[in-house]
């Protein structure tokens, strides 16, 4: 299992952000994307996940093998933690949600409606979804937002377990997960040249 990206260019709102990007992620590897705000991390991840087309270049791995986790967790406020997770498990043809609940320390909260969770607990539930998708490549956009130090460590352990099983993770994050083996890819050198008069607009991100 390998993701190979060759000479990729992607755009957000019609504005090219990244060009000439090539990298590979094999099973068992984690790749961390770094770059200042607006450098195109989210755009790159959405392009890989198949949510938007690339301007040019090749992605060797079809979106069906990846699971994407964004800033929004896709939770329904009036459903309980277990109902939310069971739904995503059923969508991906899986049944058992108990290991995912245990892994993200949510077992005690299983019957609580998602609306009564704290931001960090919601985030943990959103990340538990990754475990019930059964896909080998995790595409993560700022997975640690609103997590406390313990939960970050918990999540790092979950990622490590996924890598040990031959999975891979590609994540955009600013904080150190403590994954010593993760490679880091700086996006800044691949910034697409902007037309001089257009300048930078944060609203596009």
């Amino acid at each position, binding site marked *: 299992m390998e993701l190979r990206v060759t000479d990729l260019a992607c755009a957000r709102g019609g504005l090219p952000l990244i060009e000439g990007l090539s990298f590979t992620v094999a099973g068992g590897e984690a790749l961390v994307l770094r770059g200042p705000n607006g450098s195109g991390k989210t755009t790159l991840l959405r392009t890989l*996940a198949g949510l*938007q087309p690339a301007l040019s270049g090749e992605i060797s791995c079809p979106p069906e093998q990846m699971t994407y986790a964004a800033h929004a967790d*896709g939770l329904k406020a009036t*459903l309980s933690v277990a109902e939310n997770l069971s*739904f995503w498990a059923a969508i*991906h043809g899986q049944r058992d949600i108990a290991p995912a609940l245990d892994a993200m320390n949510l077992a005690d909260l299983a019957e609580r409606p998602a609306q009564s969770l704290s931001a960090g607990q919601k985030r943990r539930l959103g990340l538990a*979804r990754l475990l019930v998708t059964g896909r080998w490549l995790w595409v993560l956009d700022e997975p640690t937002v609103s997590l406390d130090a313990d939960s970050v460590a918990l999540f790092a352990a979950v990622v490590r377990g996924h890598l040990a099983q031959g999975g891979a993770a590609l994540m955009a994050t600013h904080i150190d997960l403590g994954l010593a083996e993760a490679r880091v890819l700086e996006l800044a050198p691949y910034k697409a040249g902007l037309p001089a008069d257009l300048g930078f607009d944060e609203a596009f991100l």
Partner: protein
Amino acid sequence: MIALLIRDLRLAFRAGGGFGLGLGFFLILAVLVPLGVGPDPVTLGIIAPGILWVGALLACLLSLDRLFALDHEDGSLDLLATSPIPLEGVVAVKALAHWGTTGLPLALAAPVLGILLNLPGAAYATLMLSLILGTPALSMIGAFGAALTVGLKRGGLLLSLLVLPMYMPTLVFGAQAVTRAAQGLDPTTPLVLLAGITAGSTALLPFAAAFALRINLR
């Protein structure tokens, strides 16, 4: 896909899910019209088919903007788009869930409200049948409109304007079927046309709506 249907139905019936919205609107309309028009049974009997069909149509329209907008806001739509279920299937299932929580209850409640509007006795069966045949088209066309406007903040107005012209054939044939039945004529032709609209929109619009969603997700 069944999981998605169950989730959408469950969400609709939970607090704040909007299940009662269309039905409540329909009830209010049927109660208010006789008060506004006056109690003359003949006048009411003449306008009843049209009022009931317009009411059902507007009640359907009321909950349409939530169809994809809520899933878009909380990120579920991105995740559904990257899930193993084809987006066309997502659209079809969500339209089905919308019909199950608005169109179907409206069709079941309509005969009761027909009494309030003094609908002639011969028309009740046709009223229910026409709503059961016609409201799936309203949900399906509405899902297409909702897919077109999903990225827009407060897209409800644009959605109504987009969907209304596409609703007209359904309304015309639906109301015509009930009117004909009320006058003792054979309602088969408008009913068949109504079923045709539903079959055609169910066959074609999931693809159009999924295409619109993909563009809006970019």
